[in-house]
């Protein structure tokens, strides 16, 4: 039979019946927001948001601004990659911000130098143990270990005691924040080794974010793991009777989310050259917001890493756009709140329309 009948059972393949990828509408939203800032910029302050207007710099676009946009969302973006997977399986992870704080503190204490400007490191927390100037792999492994343990606890609680993910990760959120304060009794930890400082230098956070995003987008679309994430999120009972080990899978998803949060912590503490107990506060909510803006459904079953990356960019563009229009930071937060709620309302509306139409 000819290729024209791509449907099965004699039905003609109908191109209009093909679903439009939801990422497309998110991308259009991104373009609209950029266009809005471009127009507002030209009208209000007579400058271009997107394009290069300086004569002494080459290039069509304002490269500096583009770099800032992606740099400021890439660290939370790394967390959002994990949060997206959790939300697709129908869960939620509130602990990622606190895991960032705890991981940053613990990893940094294994990345400290012994001598600062010829004097002993005043902030070193393991001098008598000699745990200073360790090779960079040690803080990296310790840090990722922290994320792994946090994820393992989250996942096991959710899968085996069957408490709601909201409660389990809320507990982890509070406990991990406590841990990060207790670790150095509230003091910041500074002076990392040069090799540790290289993790988050320059555009490294962007590179790490993009690499991880591509890797996990491929995993979500082409592997058994990804399929099972969507299956559990859309119908957990069906997944179970189909033979998917739902409990194992959930633990794995929360472990991956925890490890990604700890990677974000490594990048962040390296970039700032210091770790503080208050690091990562509210990051979990920003990550959830990026995911939801990117088209993921809080009911589970829908979403993608590409969508979340676009969601993160929308976030970055808005923050950068407000700075560009010289508006107060207070407005940013308010508008961010409106956008988050708006994205969820839109999702609900989309679902209801489908339920009626379908």
């Amino acid at each position, binding site marked *: 039979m000819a290729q024209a009948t791509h449907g099965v059972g004699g039905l003609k393949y109908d191109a209009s019946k093909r679903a439009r990828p939801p990422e497309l509408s998110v991308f259009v939203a991104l373009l609209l927001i950029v266009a809005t800032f471009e127009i507002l910029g030209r009208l209000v302050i007579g400058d271009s948001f997107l394009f290069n207007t300086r004569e002494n710099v080459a290039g069509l676009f304002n490269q500096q601004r583009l770099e800032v946009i992606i740099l400021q969302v890439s660290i939370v973006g790394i967390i959002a990659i994990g949060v997206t997977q959790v939300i697709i399986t129908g869960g939620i992870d509130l602990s990622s911000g606190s895991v960032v704080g705890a991981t940053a503190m613990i990893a940094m204490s294994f990345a400290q130098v012994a001598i600062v400007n010829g004097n002993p490191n005043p902030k070193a927390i393991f001098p008598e143990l000699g745990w200073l100037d360790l090779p960079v792999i040690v803080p990296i492994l310790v840090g990722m270990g922290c994320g792994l343990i946090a994820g393992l606890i989250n996942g096991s609680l959710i899968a085996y005691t069957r408490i709601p993910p909201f409660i389990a990760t809320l507990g982890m959120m509070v406990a991990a924040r406590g841990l990060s304060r207790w670790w150095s009794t509230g003091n910041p930890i500074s002076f990392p080794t040069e090799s540790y400082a290289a993790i988050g230098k320059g555009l490294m956070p962007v590179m790490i974010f993009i690499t991880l995003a591509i890797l996990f987008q491929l995993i979500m679309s082409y592997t058994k793991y990804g399929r099972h994430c969507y299956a559990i999120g859309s119908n957990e009972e069906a997944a179970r*009777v189909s033979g998917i080990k739902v409990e194992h899978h959930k633990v794995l998803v929360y472990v991956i989310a925890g490890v990604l949060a700890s990677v974000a912590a490594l990048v962040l503490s390296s970039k700032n050259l210091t770790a503080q107990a208050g690091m990562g506060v509210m990051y979990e909510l920003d990550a959830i917001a990026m995911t939801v803006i990117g088209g993921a459904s809080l009911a589970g079953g829908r979403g993608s890493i590409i969508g979340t990356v676009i969601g993160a960019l929308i976030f970055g563009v808005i923050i950068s756009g407000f700075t560009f229009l010289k508006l107060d930071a207070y407005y940013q937060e308010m508008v961010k709140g409106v956008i988050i709620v708006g994205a969820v309302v839109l999702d609900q509306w989309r679902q209801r329309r489908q339920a009626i139409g379908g």
Partner: protein
Amino acid sequence: MEEVILRTEGLTKHYGGVHALENANFELRMGEHVAIMGDNGAGKSTFVRQITGVEQRTSGKIIFGGQEVQFKGPLDARQAGIETVFQNLALADDLDVPSNLFLGREKIWLNLGPFSILDFKGMRAATEKALLRTAVKIPNLSNSIRKMSGGQRQCVAIARTATFASKLIIMDEPTAALGVQETTQVENIIRTLKVNGEPLIIVSHNMRQVFDLADRIVVFRRGRIVANLNKSETNGQDVVAYITGAKTGAEYADAA
């Protein structure tokens, strides 16, 4: 003599003091389509749940494919070759047709443990074959199930049972929630399965459907089998008499 694929001997299930199923002796031969009928609470679904391993029986034997079996769960039964289409569909709404067909037993292109890469081409080809075999009509395989009609979804669920080399298909009221046209579609699939010689147990309330599709009718009443009727030797009125208790099969006289 035709080979017997499924036999139960004295199958019994008590829920505490409630005798939901009592001493059920049942037989299904290769290629045979048997309908199970009975009033609500007669024990039909309980009977199905024991065979599919969803529940554990109180006593009795299940002999499947010549061997006595003891299913610990629905997965065991599936692995043994018993595929069930449940009343509430076991489908993942957000996945497309091939993913649903192969849910939990995906074809693997490169084995990397949980991150094994899937063989999409293979699954798609097998899906098309299964859908042709059951004559299911789906406009676009790569759309999510959510956008499909109840009938199409039911067809996908049935095609799933036919995708794998199943030895026995059980359908628990497959058309209860469907419209007229969709019911016809599902019935056509069942006829295709009959032509292909696949044995089937169908639980149904619909007399016309039963007489259309089944070779034999087994009637349950108050947890017991009260009649085992060949379609050619009975009629609707007769079956109703057995269901309501006006009549009881001679060989089941003690059950009344």
